């Protein structure tokens, strides 16, 4: 997997994160008793949805160009500090890649990719809204 440029330094207006799940399988007996077997020690398919409402066209263009620079959903990339701002105790931007960087991916052995192409909506001259969906996958 190739690495793309870092995501632009733009603070989102809304953010939604799901930490993903660990690889496991459930075996259920006829009596209903379940046994769960863990197949991996790292969660994967972490999702991070970012909304940028009514941002400037320059910022929308930066997101668009970043998507192309990452060759769409192909390359992985790192988030910028501003992408994670707003919940300073949940996500501690200590720069060390620790597991307190809870919105991030690297500390969990993951790489963020675009899950799908971003959506760009025109609001008025000079203002646009952008929705992006990222997925954190385990690196090879």
């Amino acid at each position: 997997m190739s690495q793309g440029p870092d995501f632009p330094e733009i603070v989102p207006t809304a953010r939604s994160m799901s930490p993903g799940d660990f690889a496991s399988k459930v075996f259920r007996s006829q009596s209903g008793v379940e046994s769960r077997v863990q197949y991996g020690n790292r969660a994967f398919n972490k999702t991070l949805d970012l909304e940028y409402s009514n941002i400037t066209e320059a910022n929308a263009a930066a997101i668009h160009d970043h998507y192309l620079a990452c060759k769409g959903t192909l390359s992985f990339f790192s988030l910028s500090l501003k992408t994670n701002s707003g919940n300073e105790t949940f996500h501690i931007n200590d720069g060390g890649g620790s597991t307190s960087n809870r919105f991030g991916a690297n500390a969990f052995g993951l790489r963020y990719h675009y899950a799908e192409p971003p959506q760009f909506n025109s609001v008025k001259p000079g203002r646009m809204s952008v929705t992006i969906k990222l997925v954190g996958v385990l690196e090879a």
Partner: protein
Amino acid sequence: MAYFSGKDGLVSFGGNNVAKVGNWSLSTTVDALEVTDLSLSDRTFAPGLRSSTGSATIFYTDDALGAKSLLDKIVKITATSEADITTIKLGWGIKGIQSSCIITSAELNCAVGEIMQATIQFQFTGVLSLATL
């Protein structure tokens, strides 16, 4: 400093002053686009789209400079079309505001003991401009 009162007001339609106007009003609003991001604790906004509407009450007369010519834009047997977009000027003293507009509603009232009058409401389209009367 000059004050203006009702006698200074007028409504102009298609370049001609409408006779017997009882009142007019103009309302302009601007959408507030929320641009609050996750780093802020207070809601912040940017100006969005602007919209202007107006209304006028006109004492009904059946001539070209009366309410009938305005009512004909909407109360008629044929469908309304782009051709019904007209320029309305709202004035006071020697000043005024004008723009193209669509007449969005017309109400005609005729009651015992009262002069027949029409109330029209209109939606301005495009930017307003200042006019000298």
